[in-house]
């Protein structure tokens, strides 16, 4: 148990000192504030830049537009930045050989994997939480009185999908070599999951749905029970991937 804690501490120090924490917190702060502003200002800006005399009718933006920005930005830029920043977390240590010293001192190999996942998960949770909180505050000011339904669950689904991707990244990094092999494999896995939606019925269970359908949730277009199967698949899948990562890493020649 002690090894998990010690290595978790080391990981968090690493994120803070190698600018990983800074990047993620800054990016998600910026997103959190930008989402409502974009929603609010788009019609005004459009009107300003329209050639004189032309008038267009744009529906008055609502809180939902603000959250639409949140889900779009988190799902695209947010997740990409998350994976980019964390792509070197295991691969870098293996290629540099920094683990050899600690492993010969008796550091348990599963502690390396589990602590790394825990640390990434913690940072991801803070990032997405911060972004959602800022969007919520700004939205409350800019669009007073508007309510959005099933919001907490929709944000949870987005968080869960990020947690799943981090598990994919970690497992991929134990298998693939090089500094960016894990990242590449993760990209391929996402493409594969997207392609899977061609199969009838797959959409219901596909982890990707957690991110892609979060907006429908917030817009109340679907009930949250629609995503329950995907949640039920994603949680064991993420845990299973961490299990695989531990098994592979245990046998890996360092």
């Amino acid at each position, binding site marked *: 148990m002690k090894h998990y804690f010690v290595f978790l501490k080391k990981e968090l120090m690493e994120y803070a000192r190698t600018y990983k924490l800074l*990047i993620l917190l*800054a*990016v998600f702060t910026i997103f959190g504030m930008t989402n*409502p502003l974009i929603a609010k200002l788009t019609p*005004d800006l459009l009107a300003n830049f329209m050639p004189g005399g032309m008038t267009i009718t744009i529906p008055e933006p609502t809180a939902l537009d603000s959250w639409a920005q949140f889900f779009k930005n988190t799902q695209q830029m947010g997740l990409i930045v998350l994976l980019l920043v964390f*792509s070197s977390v295991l691969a870098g240590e293996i290629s540099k050989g920094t683990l050899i010293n600690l492993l010969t001192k008796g550091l348990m190999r599963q502690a390396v994997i589990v602590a790394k996942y825990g640390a990434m998960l913690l940072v991801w949770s803070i990032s997405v939480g911060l972004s959602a909180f800022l969007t919520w505050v700004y939205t409350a000011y800019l669009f007073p009185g508007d309510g959005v339904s099933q919001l907490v669950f929709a944000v949870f689904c987005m968080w869960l999908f990020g947690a799943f991707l981090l598990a994919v990244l970690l497992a991929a990094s134990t298998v693939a070599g090089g500094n960016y092999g894990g990242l590449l494999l993760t990209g391929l896995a996402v493409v594969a999951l997207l392609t899977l939606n061609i199969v009838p019925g797959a959409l219901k269970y596909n982890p990707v749905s957690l991110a892609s359908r979060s907006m429908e949730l917030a817009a109340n277009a679907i009930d949250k029970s629609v995503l329950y199967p995907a949640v039920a698949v994603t949680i064991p899948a993420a845990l299973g991937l961490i299990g695989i990562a531990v098994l592979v890493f245990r046998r890996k020649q360092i």
Partner: protein
Amino acid sequence: MDVLREYWLFLLPLIIAQFVLMITALVHIFKHPDYRFGSRAMWIVIVVLFQMVGPIVYFVFGRGEDH
């Protein structure tokens, strides 16, 4: 630009966050002569020109070892 005047209070923290990111990246670039690729001038241009994306790309891909 009435819009900016109306919402400056909301825009200010956003601009500050962008600046923090940019300044941190610039400080790092000036303190470290080695990059994984590219030159100092190139990274300065990238970081200043591309808001948010520039510093991210620098820290993820361009940053050399600690010295």
